[in-house]
C-alpha cells in the first residue's frame, strides 16, 4: 500500500512472552508484544493522556455477568496504562472502557525467516537500521507502519 513501509524490528528470540518491547520506528514509539508466538505491535501511546503502554502491567480481562462474579479471562492479553489504569486489548488496540472510540493504533506485525528478510532488504521491500545484521538462521519480526 502506498505510503506504508515494512521494517525489520527485532529477532523473534529477542521478544519474550510476557514483557513488552518498546522500539522506535520513524519517530514513532511502538510496543511489541508476544502472545504465545503471535506478535502484536501497538502505538505505545495511551489515547487518553499519552502514557507509555509498554511501561504498564500486562494482565487478564476480568469479566462478570453479575455482582460478585469475577471471571479471569484471556490472561496476558491486556495491557494497563501505567498512568490511569485504562485497559487495552493487545490483539486489537481497543480500550475496554470505550472500545469503539478509544483505541491505540494496531500495526501489522508478522514473522519472516532470515533468508527472506535478506532478500527483502536487498530488493528494497524491507527497511532496517543501517547497522542491523540479519542472519539466515534466525526469524525476524516485521512491522508495517
Amino acid at each position: 500500500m502506498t505510503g506504508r513501509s515494512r521494517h525489520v524490528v527485532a529477532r523473534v528470540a529477542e521478544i519474550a512472552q510476557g514483557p513488552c518491547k518498546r522500539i522506535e520506528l520513524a519517530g514513532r514509539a511502538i510496543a511489541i508484544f508476544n502472545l504465545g508466538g503471535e506478535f502484536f505491535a501497538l502505538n505505545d501511546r495511551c489515547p487518553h493522556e499519552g502514557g507509555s503502554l509498554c511501561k504498564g502491567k500486562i494482565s487478564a480481562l476480568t469479566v462478570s455477568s453479575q455482582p460478585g462474579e469475577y471471571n479471569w479471562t484471556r490472561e496476558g492479553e491486556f495491557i494497563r496504562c501505567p498512568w490511569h489504569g485504562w485497559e487495552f486489548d493487545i490483539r486489537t488496540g481497543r480500550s475496554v472502557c470505550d472500545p469503539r472510540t478509544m483505541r491505540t493504533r494496531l500495526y501489522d506485525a508478522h514473522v519472516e525467516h532470515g533468508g527472506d528478510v535478506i532478500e527483502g532488504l536487498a530488493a528494497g521491500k524491507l527497511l532496517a537500521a543501517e547497522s542491523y545484521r540479519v542472519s539466515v538462521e534466525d526469524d525476524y519480526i516485521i512491522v508495517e507502519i
Partner: protein
Amino acid sequence: MTPAAYRAIDCDVHPHVPGTNVLLPYLEPHWVEQIVDRGIHSLDSIAYPPNAPLTARADFRQEGLGLQSLQRQVFDRWGAQRAILNCLCGVQLIHNTDMAIALTRALNAWIAAEWLKKDDRLFASIIVPMQDMDAAIEEIEHWAAHPQFVQAMVLANGESPLGKRRYWPLHRALEMHGLPLGIHAGSSYHNPVTSLGWTNYHLEDYAAQSLGFQAQVASLVTEGVFVKFPRLKVVLLESGVSWLPGFIWRLSKFWRGVRRETPWVDRPPGDIIRDHFAMSVTPFDGPRDADVVRKVIDQIQSDEFLLWSSDYPHWQFDGDAKMPAGVPESLYAKIMRDNPLKLYPKIAATRTEAVR
C-alpha cells in the same frame, strides 16, 4: 405554557402530617398508649423544621396545608391532572424497630384513607420502614396492588448505601411489582448528613443532601443492582438537578481506570444512570440564566430523565408552579407528562381521555 396545557403529572408534592395524633386510629392499642403516654406529638426532624420557610411557603401555610388546600393549589390553580404524594414524616428516624414498623404502617394507612381514598387524582409513595428488611418487604407487598400507590420511598440519607446486598430483597420486590424506588431528600439522622460529621446549621443540612444522593447513585450503580434487577427504576426526588452532569462525568471517568474492581459494571456508569434513573425538576439548583439551565439539560444527554414537580408546599419558588426557566419548551410535554406516564403505568391507566 402551563402545567394544565400539558395535563401535567406533579411528581413530588407533600401531604402535611399535622401530628402523630392523626395516626392513632391506624395503630394497635399498644402503640397508641406508647405514643400518648410518652407524649410523642410529632416526628418532625431538622430536615424540615416545622416553621422553616422551606417547609411551607408563607401563603400556603396561611391557607392551611390539608387536602383541600393541596387540591386547590396543585389541581385547581396550577392545573396539574395528577399528583404523587411523597409523605415526609420522620418515621425513618425511629430507632425502636417495632415502633418504626408500626408507625410507618400507620402512616401508609393514613395516606391511603385520608388522601388517596378522597381524591382519585392523587397517587402516593409507599413509605418503607428501612429499619427492618422483612417489614419493608411486607409493607410493599401490602400496598403493591393498590391502584394509587405507584412507588416506594426512602430517604437519601438512610442507614447505609442502598446498593448493598442487604437491600436487594427490597429491589427484587420493587422490580417484581414494577414500582420505582423513590429516593427523597432527607435523613434518618442515624448517620451525620455529611461524611465529615454533624453540621450545625439548617443551610448546611439542606445543601448536603446532594452528597447523599450522589452516594446513593454511585452505590446502586457500582454494586450492580441494575445488573441483578434490570427492570428496576430509581427516582431522585427533591434532589436538585444541576449537580448531576458533573457527577456523571466524575463517576464515568474514574470507572475507566478502576473498571476491573466491579467487572459487572460493563458499560459507562453514565449510560446506566440514564437508563435507570429519573429526577424531579424542583429544585433545579440553577441560576436564572436560561442558557446555563439549557446546558445542564444537554449535558444529562437524555430527554427522558426529568419529571415535573412543584414540591408543594415547600418554598422553592414564588407565584405559580411552572417549569424552571431555561428548560426548552420542546421538552415540556415529556417532562410534564410522557416521562411520568412511562415511569408510572398505574397513573397512565387512569387517564382515559385521549392524549393530545
